[in-house]
């Protein structure tokens, strides 16, 4: 009984009729596209739909937009060139010249995240990057790839990453433990940062949206809140894609040049 009231559920609203209904997390529910309840590993869901939309957007903007190969670029072509130059210089500046070999993979990550983030901002859309099931594999992919690259390139010398040769000898084992922990925390923070930011933005907008329906006096304030949060989310959508990519570059740099 009491759990029903405070469980933020639909049943609770019947009893506490005065209070607003909060379902800020409902927008992230995975649903099969073609009815039914079962979600097998192959079932097309709303996540599939919006990933497909992202792929179509990538094709429209990056493939169709650049099809003329103009010397003086059109608008869409210059967007594609801008994205290319942005990621390319990021990889070159952070990971170094020998990191450019991995540029297509990093570009794939960036394009996927930035398109997913922005498509998730469309009202009633499903933001794929708010799912831990999406960001955790991404972060683990980066983590394992980078670790494997490090060991392949430097062999056992890659462990020098944890042995801070600049520190006094007595401190080095302690620092090694700290470095080791921080190394293994990387995928956690890497994935939760992205999903958490996107989720937080959407959930807060949802909460404000609930307040719009509460009373005529609160509605304008809540509306301003929604607009402000939306602007913030547009910023966050880009910055989080940028941060995810640049952290990937930083980790890649650590793998390519492990010496401290």
């Amino acid at each position: 009984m009491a759990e029903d009231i405070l469980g933020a559920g639909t049943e609770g609203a019947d009893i506490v009729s005065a209070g607003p209904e909060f379902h800020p997390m409902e927008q992230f529910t995975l649903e099969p596209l073609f009815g039914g309840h079962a979600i097998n590993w192959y079932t097309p869901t709303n996540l599939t739909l919006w990933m497909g939309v992202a792929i179509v957007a990538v094709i429209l903007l990056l493939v169709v937009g650049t099809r003329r190969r103009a010397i003086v670029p059109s608008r869409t072509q210059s967007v594609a060139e801008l994205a290319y130059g942005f990621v390319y210089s990021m990889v070159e500046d952070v990971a170094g010249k020998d990191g450019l070999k991995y540029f297509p993979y990093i570009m794939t990550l960036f394009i996927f995240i930035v398109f997913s983030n922005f498509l998730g901002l469309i009202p009633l859309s499903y933001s794929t990057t708010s799912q831990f099931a999406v960001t955790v594999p991404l972060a683990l992919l980066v983590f394992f790839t980078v670790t494997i690259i490090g060991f392949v390139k430097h062999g056992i010398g890659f462990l020098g990453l944890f042995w801070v040769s600049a520190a006094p000898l007595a401190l080095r084992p302690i620092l090694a433990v700290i470095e080791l922990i921080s190394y293994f925390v990387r995928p956690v923070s890497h994935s939760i940062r992205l999903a958490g930011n996107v989720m937080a933005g959407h959930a807060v907008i949802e909460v404000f949206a609930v307040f719009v329906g509460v009373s005529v006096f609160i509605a304008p304030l809540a509306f301003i809140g929604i607009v402000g949060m939306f602007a913030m989310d547009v910023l966050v959508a880009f910055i989080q894609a940028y941060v995810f990519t640049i952290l990937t570059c930083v980790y890649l740099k650590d793998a390519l040049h492990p010496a401290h």
Partner: protein
Amino acid sequence: MAQDTTEVVGELTEQIGEGGGMPQLDFANYPNQIFWLAVSLVIIYFILSRVVLPRVSSVLAERQGTITNDIATADELKQKAVEAEEAYLKALADARAEAGRIVAEAKLEIQAELDVAIAKADAEIAAKAAESEVAIGEIRKGALKAVETVARSTATEIIKAVMPGAGDAKAVTAAVKSQLKGA
């Protein structure tokens, strides 16, 4: 059998979802999401690496080439302009030198002509002066003779008048002559 299990799990999770849980922590849906994530990533990777990246990099390289060419052409043209300006200045300087030379030559010629003319005029003047001197000398001579003649005739007449029959012309003439020489 496995199908049934996943269906049951799906129904269960949906019931939990209705209760307001976090759909992100619904681990039963993870295989599905990871599967579709992998599919999309692979598709995007192939779109990018097969089509977009080569295309964009070739366009950028081409543009870089064009810009380099254009800058080279512009440099060439600038060089040409500088050369043309140099040639123009040189021609101007040459023309100026030529003009100076012509002026100097003309000056020299005029000077020479002037000198010749002056010399000629001087000669003419000298000749005229000499002629005039000769004429003056003759006139002076004539005048002296005339004075002698007048003096002689006058003296003769005076003598005739003072003492008629006295004296003779020869003595008078001698006297006059000696007088004129003494004067």
